[in-house]
């Protein structure tokens, strides 16, 4: 063999080895049914998880008038624009063909805890399993039980329209290696039960940081600026800083927030200055107003206790056109 051929042979062998390593490292993880102990589902708790999880906000059949959306019809179809292309939210109604009617409980836990689909592929992290992974097993199973009480909706949703290479699902395995860590929520014993409940709801099902944090060029949350606000994922609006650096340093026309203001806001959308919030937060409040007052107070207590963090600067204002 000539020297040149040897080099090529070596390179080919290396490439095969690298591909094999990549393939193994990006294997989608699952939760087997054997890992689930006996559990009696609590459908009422499942409904609470459904509300704080905001599932209907993405998965319900969309309507031009947001007040007309039927939260129980989870036929999907909403288009989510992102820097990676447009995601079309899937049907998660209990429909056997179009939705998750054929899913087992373990399939559902696998989706929320591992970001892996029932067919063994990675879910794109537009589905915020980076937050849902912190949910307790009982809560996830109750949520599944609740969803199964909802009406089946027929009609599969179209495939996502993503730009290359972000459309390659296997690459999400690489993304997960870099950015998907954690696991179930662990309470802080030095804090009150209310604070821990708030921390759980915010970081788990509430997935508040998923909107209220800036993301890097690969779409992962920048940890050091979690909750410190940033550009919205569709690139159109600015999501505010909800650490005390934001809430205690109000802009023009606004007033500093007390925990009571936060809890009240999550009920009626009215800021301490008497303003009615706009944009995507209105949809969040459609969910949080369905929670108990205790849960809203817990969320407020946790948010008020966040360490103050400076977030990214909003883009410079446009020059006025003549």
């Amino acid at each position, binding site marked *: 063999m000539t020297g040149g051929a040897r080099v090529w042979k070596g390179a080919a062998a290396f490439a095969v080895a690298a591909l094999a390593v990549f393939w193994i490292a990006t294997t989608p993880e699952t939760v087997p049914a054997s890992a689930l102990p006996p559990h009696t589902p609590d459908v009422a708790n499942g409904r609470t998880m459904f509300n704080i999880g905001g599932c209907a906000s993405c998965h319900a059949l969309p309507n031009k008038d947001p007040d007309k959306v039927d939260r129980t019809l989870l036929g999907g179809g909403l288009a989510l624009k992102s820097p990676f292309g447009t995601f079309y939210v899937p049907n998660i109604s209990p429909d056997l063909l179009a939705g998750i009617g054929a899913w087992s409980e373990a399939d559902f836990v696998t989706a929320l805890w591992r970001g892996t689909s029932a067919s063994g592929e990675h879910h794109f992290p537009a589905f915020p399993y980076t937050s849902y992974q912190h949910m307790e097993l009982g809560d996830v199973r109750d949520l599944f039980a609740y969803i199964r009480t909802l009406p089946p909706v027929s009609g599969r949703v179209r495939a996502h329209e993503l730009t290359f290479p972000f459309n390659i699902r296997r690459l999400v395995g690489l993304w997960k290696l870099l950015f998907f860590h954690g696991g179930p929520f662990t309470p802080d014993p030095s804090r009150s039960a209310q604070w821990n409940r708030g921390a759980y709801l915010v970081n788990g099902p509430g997935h508040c940081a998923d909107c209220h944090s800036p993301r890097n060029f690969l779409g992962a949350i920048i940890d050091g600026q979690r909750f410190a606000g940033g550009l919205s994922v569709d690139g159109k609006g600015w999501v505010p800083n909800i650490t005390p650096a934001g809430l205690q340093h109000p802009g023009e026309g606004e007033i500093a927030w007390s925990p009571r203001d936060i809890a009240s806001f999550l009920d009626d959308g009215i800021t301490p200055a008497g303003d*009615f919030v*706009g944009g995507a937060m209105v949809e969040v409040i459609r969910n949080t107003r369905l929670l108990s007052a205790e849960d809203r107070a817990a969320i407020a207590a946790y948010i008020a206790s966040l360490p103050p963090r400076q977030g990214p600067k909003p883009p410079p204002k446009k020059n006025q056109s003549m």
Partner: protein
Amino acid sequence: MVRKLLAALAILALGMTAAAAQSCDDIVKTRQSLMKRSGEMGKVASSMIKGETPFDLAKTKEVFAAFAEDASSMPTLFPDCSKNAEHSNASPAIWENLDDFKKLMAKFATDVKEAQENTKDLDGLKASLDAIGKDCRGCHERFRIKKS
């Protein structure tokens, strides 16, 4: 002679443009201050509903009067020239859905008028603010976008 005329026309045009631009700026400022006042009035009303302050019919009428001024001025406060205004949270969606926007403004005006005619006590205030709050939310959800 022609040159003088052209010069005069040019100066006139410049002046008109400047005047129009300034009035557009004023329009944006006006709508922002109207909204701000509505917010402050809304706070007065919601604090009565939450039981933080006692119900006061005179104050309630003040609140609705402010809302009514808002409602009647609004159709003139979103001209085309104000589409890209600096410091404004008005979303371009307004001009893409002008019919819907006008319908929502009209509903707001109707609800405020009804509130003015029918609100006599705390229960009435709660009901009125429910309806009016829905109007606020309806516009703000689709047509307001935080820019910073």
